[in-house]
């Protein structure tokens, strides 16, 4: 395990529900200090904040009840970079087909459960030339689709009839789960977007040590 911290900047992971440890695990793998964000004070001094996969209705409820929504919006206005994976992307989208948007901060439209249920979850590999030189393994779990991107939004990964990854100057969205694969490409990409310098001591973005149970080592009960 590489534990060198490449940069003093700290990356937050919203810690209300969902794939929190998995993101913290990947951050540690690229030598970036990660911090679980559970209360407003945890947002202070962050270089970026990851809103993980989980259930977006649950995350939305908890963000509202405990006042984190307004705090995240305030930090965003002061320049905080945000990355939403899956449910996180739904929360950040300006438009949510058939439903009210939540943060509404990036000019995209998402369609929830656009592939269907769990039997339609899948993984594939695709090249995202703006993110990494090698194909990236992508895990879609009850994923949404990005069905529209605004003029200020750059498409990072386009599929047949939808967009799977996009960004504007301050926000990255991915409808898949890089934290559930050995690929560190998107975590490195977001760290650089936040002005951090992720460690890179191999030619590949894939961590050879990764296993599906990697997150256990960092779990609260391990």
């Amino acid at each position, binding site marked *: 395990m590489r534990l060198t911290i490449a940069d003093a900047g700290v990356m937050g992971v919203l810690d209300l529900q969902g794939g929190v440890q998995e993101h913290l695990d990947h951050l540690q793998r690229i030598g970036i200090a990660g911090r679980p964000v559970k209360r407003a004070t945890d947002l202070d001094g962050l270089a970026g904040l990851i809103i993980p996969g*989980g*259930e977006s*209705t649950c995350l939305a*409820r908890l963000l509202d009840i405990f006042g984190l929504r307004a705090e995240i919006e305030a930090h965003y206005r002061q320049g905080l970079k945000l990355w939403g994976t899956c449910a996180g992307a739904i929360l950040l989208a300006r438009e949510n087909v058939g439903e009210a948007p939540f943060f509404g901060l990036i000019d995209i439209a998402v369609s929830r459960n656009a592939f269907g249920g*769990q039997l339609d*979850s899948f993984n594939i590999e695709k090249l995202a030339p703006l993110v990494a030189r090698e194909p990236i393994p992508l895990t879609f779990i009850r994923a949404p689709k990005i069905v529209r991107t605004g003029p200020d939004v750059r498409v990072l990964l386009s599929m047949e009839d939808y967009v799977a990854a996009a960004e504007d100057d301050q926000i990255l969205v991915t409808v898949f789960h890089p934290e559930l694969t050995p690929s560190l490409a998107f975590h490195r990409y977001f760290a650089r977007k936040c002005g951090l310098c992720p460690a890179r001591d191999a030619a590949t973005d894939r961590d050879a040590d990764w296993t*599906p149970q990697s*997150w256990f080592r960092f779990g609260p009960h391990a």
Partner: protein
Amino acid sequence: MAENRYLLNTQLAQMLKGGVIMDVVNVEQAQIAQEAGAVAVMALERVPADIRKHGGVARMSDPDLIKAIKESVTIPVMAKARIGHFVEAQILQALKIDYIDESEVLTPADEECHIDKTCFEIPFVCGARNLGEALRRIAEGAAMIRTKGEAGTGNVVEAVRHMRTMNREIRQLVHMPVEEVVSFAKNNGLPYELALEVKKLNRLPVVNFAAGGIATPADAALMMQLGCDGIFVGSGIFKSSDPVRHALAIVKATAYFNDPEKVLEASLDLGDAMPGLDIASMPAEERLAGRGW
């Protein structure tokens, strides 16, 4: 089932971590659960407390009911099949729900065999009272485990017993020399290869939720502090005096399980929890946790 499919199924369970899965018996309850922040609903005809009261044979729910609930929410929908009833499971898979609970709360259809879950594409969650039971279910293809607890009682004591038992057995396994693992596995009914994996991982190789008797925000936080990854609430919400508040309170307490002030906040102004049952004085044949082999 392809290896890749099994991994996707364990990963859906990972995305439910830190969340609350609620039993619901109709569309209205499903929407209340989703609105309160449930991460999934368990579609049932009767909550366990009513299954207890009614007696008789408890079977898979009416597919029309499950379908209506599935169409009314965006969160994942789970439903129960009887232990060993692989055709109920086939029907639930054909219904394209998100997870099957092969559950001791329903009357077992087979008193020797559980469902061979490796034949299915759809993920399964199964109940366990101890490490052996958990690992046998995983060997059969379960992608997620939950404590059995004692469903429909509003009494958390059995869920605590099951979680403590699993934690103790995992600790024993982790600290024993490898040559002792064979006899430990034999004496406790652990599949050997999985026993070695648990020894290496220092926990179950899949997500493990608490279930069976959780009735209050404090119960939920207790199970989370004991090391569960999330919470199933059966009768505890819709048998309470104020289901909307109880649902939200248990979601809050689960997310902030380590923060007593937040758990207190969740516990205020709640009304009455569901009535509880004493399990010690309950005849053995009324206990559901003993079902499963």
